[in-house]
């Protein structure tokens, strides 16, 4: 079986004013269909850059991103992104934010009534159907993030890319949304790639955890499989030996072998 998503010998550097910043170097990664992969690493190592490369929002300097063996080099709705700060359009209601995506992606394939049902279905998935006519400014941060997820899901993406989706949320809201994402993953079987700073979140949600070394020229340091059967329950896992071992492995990687050293600017 060939890989669903393949990052093939990717380098990425930014050139600005004659100076070159090496961000990623020699990234190789294959992701299977339906897999949930987390990317974890210290701040500034290039996680967002890697996600943007998959999304096509940034161009690779060398190497290639292959989705089902075809190179991707431009953004598209089959690789939907849940942005770190929700990025809802503030002048549109919750419904219209999702509807913008739905009418663009399914404009010709679904009738108006079908599109409406599809918008409502996706808002339902994240339990936001009741707030359809609210503006983003009128709902809480967690709700905005839910709508962002609904918008991304509504594109029926092959891959869902999440850039620290819960980073700005309090612990309780975050736990709710983690459960929501796990449930959606179980129900729809999407391939998901998620960036996170949170070790527990990574272990709880992922099939595999990709650990990045520190930049500049960050590499994939280690890839850890999380062989915990699904559905996973956060309370039962708290004392699970596999869970604790995975957690320890990630912590060791992050805080022993690749301690965050403040780069000399």
């Amino acid at each position, binding site marked *: 079986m060939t890989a669903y998503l393949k990052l093939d010998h990717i380098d990425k550097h930014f050139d600005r004013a004659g100076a070159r910043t090496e961000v990623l170097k020699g990234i190789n990664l294959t992701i299977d269909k339906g897999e949930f992969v987390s990317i974890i690493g210290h701040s500034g190592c290039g996680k967002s850059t890697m996600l943007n490369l998959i999304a096509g929002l940034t161009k690779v300097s060398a190497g290639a991103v292959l989705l089902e063996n075809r190179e991707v080099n431009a953004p598209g709705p089959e690789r939907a992104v849940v942005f770190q*700060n929700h990025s809802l359009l503030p002048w549109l209601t919750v419904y219209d934010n999702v509807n913008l995506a739905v009418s663009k992606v399914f404009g010709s394939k679904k009738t108006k009534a079908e599109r409406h049902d599809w918008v409502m279905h996706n808002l339902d998935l994240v339990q936001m159907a009741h707030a359809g006519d609210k503006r983003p400014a009128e709902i809480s941060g967690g709700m905005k993030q839910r709508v962002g997820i609904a918008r991304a899901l509504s594109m029926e993406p092959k891959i869902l890319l999440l850039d620290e989706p819960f*980073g700005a949320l309090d612990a309780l809201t975050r736990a709710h949304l983690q459960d929501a994402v796990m449930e959606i993953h179980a129900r729809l079987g999407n391939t998901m790639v998620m960036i996170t700073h949170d070790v527990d979140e990574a272990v709880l949600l992922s099939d595999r955890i990709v650990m990045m070394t520190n930049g500049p020229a960050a590499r994939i340091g280690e890839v850890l499989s999380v062989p915990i059967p699904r559905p996973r329950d956060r309370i039962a896992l708290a004392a699970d030996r596999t869970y604790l071992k995975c957690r320890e492995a990630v912590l060791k990687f992050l805080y022993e072998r690749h301690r965050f050293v403040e780069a000399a600017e």
Partner: protein
Amino acid sequence: MSALAPIPSGSGPSTSADRKAAGSARATTGTVVALSRRPQPRFNLKRIGLGLAQSVLPPLVVLALLVGLWQVLCSAPDASLPSPATVWEQSRDLIVSPFFDNGSQDIGLGWRVLVSLQRVAYGFGLAAIAGILVGAVIGQSVWAMRGLDPIFQVLRTVPPLAWLPLSLAAFQQANPSAIFVIFITSIWPVIINTAVGVRNIPADYRNVAEVLRLNQIEFFFKIMLPAASPYIFTGLRIGVGLSWLAIVAAEMLTGGVGIGFFIWDAWNSSRLPDIIVALVYIGVVGFILDKLVAFAARIITRGAATN
């Protein structure tokens, strides 16, 4: 971490409102707290009356004082300017009935203002459309911005009247020249503000558009216009003010029945009281135009400024 660029008008109060809304939303979904329902403040005639008095009374008092002072200063028999009483005596028909029509040049100032407004509508309407389009193109390109911005900054300081000879030479006719002068005077702030607004569209919105593969036209209508609308309306508001300045200048020289030509005509036949009445008309109409654009801006940009 929010990467949203600050949006100029009203972003301060709206963010606090946002936080408040978010907080109350969380409260309603989270815990159940019995809130004693405070009685809704009823439609309060006294408060409205007070507010009205506070905003209307002071200018009325000042106005009365100024008119009084003017009366004192100009009531001497050899005064060079007419006093308010003289204005009232000699131009009463212009003041009390804006819409009389006794044929050809003997018509009420209301009609003249309407004719002028029509010219402004053409000139400013064209300037608004062209200005937003050009501004959008320029805002999208760093190099266009760098190259054109200084030129626009110079051109926008050219006074309306200075365009008139060129305009007359180019169009050969009075009415198109007047409209062109309005157009060329009011387009610069629209272009410049639109370009700045487009440049300040948060990268997040562009990313959303890219992921959705919006084409240029969809991007323009669905992202660019709403996201830049606070800036665009700032430009439009300055522009409408400038175009009202330009109309009077343009009409003075091109003739016709507009309010500008009326002033010129009155000056030539030494009817100073009429000129004063016309000035008041122009001021009031300009004020209303400005408020109309501001009102439209408030309605339309309500969403864009709050996030």
